[in-house]
C-alpha cells in the first residue's frame, strides 16, 4: 500500500511541471564569501556559505556542487563584465602635476583601460577632515572635475568620464576631525 502511494507521488511529480526558482551564493574571485537572504512568503533563508542554495518548495538550505553551478550558470557567469579596478592618484598641492609616485599608477590605470573593450572611468575626489563636511563634499567634487580635465588632456574621451565627490567620508588614513593628512587628499579612479 505504502509502495503504491509512493509510486503515485513519483508519477505525479514526473507529470507536473515544477517551478524552478534557485538562488545560490558563489565564492568571489578574491575568495570572499558573501551573504544573501531569500524571502519566500513567510519562509526566510540566509545563505552565507559557498554554493549554499535556496530551492523552490524546500525549507532546508541546499548545497550545489561547483559542477552543477558551472552547468546551469557557466554561460551567464562568463558574460559578467570585468571587475572594476581602482587606482589612487596624488597631485602636488595646488597644481595639476602628478606626484612622482603617482606616475606609474597612471600608467597602470591606462593599461586597465586598454584591457577593457568599452572602458569607462569614474573619478572620485576625497578630502582630509580639515573644514566643514559639506564644504569638503564640494571641494572633493571640484578636485575630481579638475582631474577629469587632466585625463581629457592626456587623450581620454570626456564622455567616458564621470566624476563624484566623497568629501571626508572615506578616509584612507583614519584621523580625528580637523586633521591635515595629505594621504587622504587623493583622487581615486575606477576603471570599469
Amino acid at each position, binding site marked *: 500500500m505504502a509502495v503504491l502511494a509512493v509510486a503515485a507521488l513519483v508519477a505525479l511529480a514526473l507529470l507536473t511541471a515544477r*517551478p524552478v526558482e534557485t538562488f545560490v551564493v558563489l565564492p568571489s574571485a578574491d575568495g570572499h564569501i558573501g551573504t544573501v537572504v531569500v524571502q519566500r512568503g513567510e519562509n526566510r533563508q540566509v545563505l552565507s556559505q559557498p554554493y549554499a542554495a535556496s530551492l523552490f518548495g524546500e525549507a532546508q538550505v541546499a548545497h550545489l556542487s561547483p559542477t552543477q553551478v558551472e552547468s546551469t*550558470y557557466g554561460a551567464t557567469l*562568463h*558574460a559578467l*563584465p570585468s571587475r572594476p579596478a581602482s587606482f589612487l592618484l596624488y597631485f602636488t598641492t595646488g597644481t595639476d602635476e602628478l606626484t612622482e609616485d603617482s606616475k606609474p599608477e597612471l600608467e597602470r590605470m591606462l593599461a586597465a583601460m586598454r584591457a577593457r573593450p568599452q572602458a569607462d572611468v569614474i573619478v572620485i575626489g576625497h578630502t582630509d577632515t580639515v573644514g566643514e563636511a559639506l564644504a569638503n*563634499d564640494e571641494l572633493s567634487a571640484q578636485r575630481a572635475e579638475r582631474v577629469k580635465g587632466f585625463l581629457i588632456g592626456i587623450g581620454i574621451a570626456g564622455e567616458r568620464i564621470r566624476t563624484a*565627490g*566623497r568629501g571626508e*567620508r572615506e578616509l584612507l588614513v583614519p584621523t580625528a576631525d580637523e586633521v591635515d593628512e595629505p594621504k587622504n587628499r587623493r583622487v581615486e579612479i575606477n576603471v570599469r
Partner: protein
Amino acid sequence: MRATLAAILFLASAAAVAADAGEIKVVNGSAYLERAGERLQLKAGMPVREADVVVTGANGTVGITFADNSLLSIGPNSNFTIERFVFNSTTHAGQFDSRLNKGTLAGVSGKIVKQSPEAMRVHTPSAIMGVRGTEFAVQVGDKH
C-alpha cells in the same frame, strides 16, 4: 550660510544627472532591450535605465556594469527588468531592485550594498533575494 546653500544646490544637481543606471559592457548572441514599447538592438556601450527590460535568445548573454560598480549578467532565454536604480555617488545611499522573470542571472554587488546591506534586491515570481554582499546566481524556469 551662503556656502551651505551653494553646497546644497551642488548636491541637488549631482543627484539630478544620475539618470543612467548603468552601461552594457558585454553582448553575445541574440539579445535586445525593451524600452517604452520599443525594441532596441543591444550593443556594448549602450546606457540602461530604470524600467528597461533585457530579453535574450537561446544563445544570448548580456553583461551590465552599474553606476555603483554592481555587475550583473543575464544568461540565455532570459527576461530581466531593471525596476529601480537610485544611487547617490557622494553618500553611496541607494536602492537597486531588479526582477528575473525567466532564465538565469549572475551578479556581484557594488557600493550600494556596502553602504546599505540588502538595498540590492532581486525579485523572482515567488521570492525576493536581498544581497548583503558579493557574488550570487539566480535561475527561474520550469522543471518537467
